């Protein structure tokens, strides 16, 4: 089969610059939306998947297994847990039993109230949540209204770089708190939180109950999950229920599935709009070339060779759009923070998503060429040659 040279397809692209721009814009929009939808899902899943550990068991208020923020646990429960349970992690005299308060507080940031998850903790929290590391600054001191802010939470607070947050003050329920440190947690949900000393947060929020007690079990010392299940069931007076951190965050991820689906559907619907627009302009570009296609056939080029050339042309346009979209996604979208009720996560544009974007662009090129190719080649040669431009 004698093929048309690639230059033929390339030169044809420049015949109508405005049409070319429109088609490239359409395909880049479609690819960008596909990549954003995928980045949203991957980013949210990544945040929730690295949050929590199987070895950390959360004791929540009975009936509040779905939401730690709704949960209420009696203050004295923490001491009862640490004295009744064996086999939890200990280090340098610190017990792996972390009493915590989780509360969403609106913080005034540049005139806008933004809900941020504040976690009231004691030093035990750093033994239990072992992924947490202080990146900048120092630990907040109890009684001094000081805070440790997650690296993603600094963005919610309006700071470009996490380090910029150090030394700044924020108001929590009219109490002024100073930021003394910035923490990271391997990309987990904690990076979107703010940690305060438990006693300070209890005073500020005028609360006298905990949200949960997190116990870090140590299997080598005989610690098991069933011990805590048994404890929760036998101490009905404490009104507790046990769930592993991993299960809790998995349930949370399941809860957010419809929202993920909604985002994907919205992106897909907009993408379909862009796709149809792109198809329309490609169709118009090719349909006006029926006579040219007839001429090529009289010159001896087979229908397959012409089809191949037209698909090449369409792929060149669509893949240009895909490359533009991938560049935008990597430069502007990757790492973009999104706040949700449990904290903050970032849109992740991974290698797989870039591959998906490029593959979508190529697929668009092939699919977009089908209808116009049929339109161009369906007529017999004499009729094609008589067709008006």
């Amino acid at each position, binding site marked *: 089969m004698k093929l048309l040279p690639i230059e033929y397809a390339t030169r044809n692209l420049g015949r109508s610059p405005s049409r070319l721009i429109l088609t490239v814009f359409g395909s880049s929009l479609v690819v960008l939306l596909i990549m954003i939808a995928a980045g949203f899902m991957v980013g949210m899943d990544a945040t929730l998947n690295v949050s929590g550990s199987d070895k950390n068991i959360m004791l929540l208020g*009975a*009936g509040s297994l779905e939401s730690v923020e709704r949960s209420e646990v009696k203050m004295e429960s923490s001491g009862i847990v640490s004295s009744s349970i064996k086999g939890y992690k200990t280090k340098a005299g610190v017990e792996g039993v972390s009493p915590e308060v989780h509360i969403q507080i609106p913080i005034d940031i540049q005139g806008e109230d933004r809900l941020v998850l504040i976690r009231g903790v004691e030093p035990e929290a750093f033994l239990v949540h072992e992924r947490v590391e202080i990146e900048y600054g120092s630990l907040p001191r109890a009684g001094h209204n000081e805070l440790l802010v997650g690296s993603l939470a600094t963005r919610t607070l309006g700071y470009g770089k996490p380090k910029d947050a150090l030394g700044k003050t924020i108001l929590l329920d009219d109490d002024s708190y100073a930021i003394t440190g910035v923490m990271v947690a391997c990309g987990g949900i904690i990076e979107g939180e703010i940690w305060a000393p438990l006693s300070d947060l209890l005073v500020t929020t005028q609360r006298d109950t905990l949200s949960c007690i997190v116990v870090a079990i140590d299997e080598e010392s005989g610690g098991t999950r069933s011990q805590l*299940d048994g404890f929760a069931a*036998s101490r*009905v*007076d404490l009104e507790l229920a046990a769930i592993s951190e991993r299960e809790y965050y998995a349930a949370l991820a399941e809860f957010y599935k419809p929202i993920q689906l909604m985002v994907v559907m919205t992106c897909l619907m907009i993408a379909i709009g862009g796709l149809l627009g792109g198809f329309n302009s490609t169709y118009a570009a090719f349909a006006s070339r029926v006579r040219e296609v007839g001429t090529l056939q009289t010159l001896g080029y087979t229908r397959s060779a012409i089809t191949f050339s037209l698909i090449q042309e369409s792929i060149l346009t669509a893949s240009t759009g895909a490359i533009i979209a991938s560049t935008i996604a990597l430069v502007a979208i990757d790492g973009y923070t999104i706040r949700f009720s449990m904290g903050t996560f970032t849109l992740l544009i991974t290698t797989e998503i870039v591959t998906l974007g490029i593959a979508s662009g190529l697929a668009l090129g092939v699919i977009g060429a089908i209808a116009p190719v049929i339109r161009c080649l369906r007529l017999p040669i004499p009729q094609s040659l008589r067709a008006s431009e």
Partner: protein
Amino acid sequence: MKHLTLLITLSLLVSCRGNEEQSQQKTTNKETLPSHFFTTERPVDVKDLVDVKMNAKAGDEVTFLARIGGRKHGSFVPTLAMMIVADPNLLSCELMACDDHCDTPEDYCCEDPKVLTQGLGTIRFMKNQTDTYPFSVEGLGGMEVLKYVVVAGKVHDINANGLFIVDAKKIWVGGAPAYGDNRAGSGE
């Protein structure tokens, strides 16, 4: 191509067989409580849980009527022979109306939490003096949430805040009540 088809067929057969073996193992590994824990003869003149709990102290031999439930999806401990029971006078949601307005009536969500805590008890099935059997008792001997049970056993621990742990010696399992007949299934 023939070799490829053969290979795929063989691997499918092997994986199916593996699943079969696994499910057989699951069935044979199913643990159960010794039969001496269960009785089909319901004790007569049995008091409700709260009436017994009010005057009980650790070490007492007690017999009371209760219903299995008290926690949402957690009335049976998944890895221990332990369950939570509630006083028959506490109202679970399915007894409040004939419609199914609550997916988990066993959590007694419409009851006052303080009253609920005082009306709950924990039943343990002990393997020996110190250890509970290491499996869930859900479904064993017909034990299911919302069903009536009469428990005879020894009080292991009790306090004024609502703690009430009983080590079961005998258990009679009845049925579940229905809207309009709160004591149906209690054997009374």
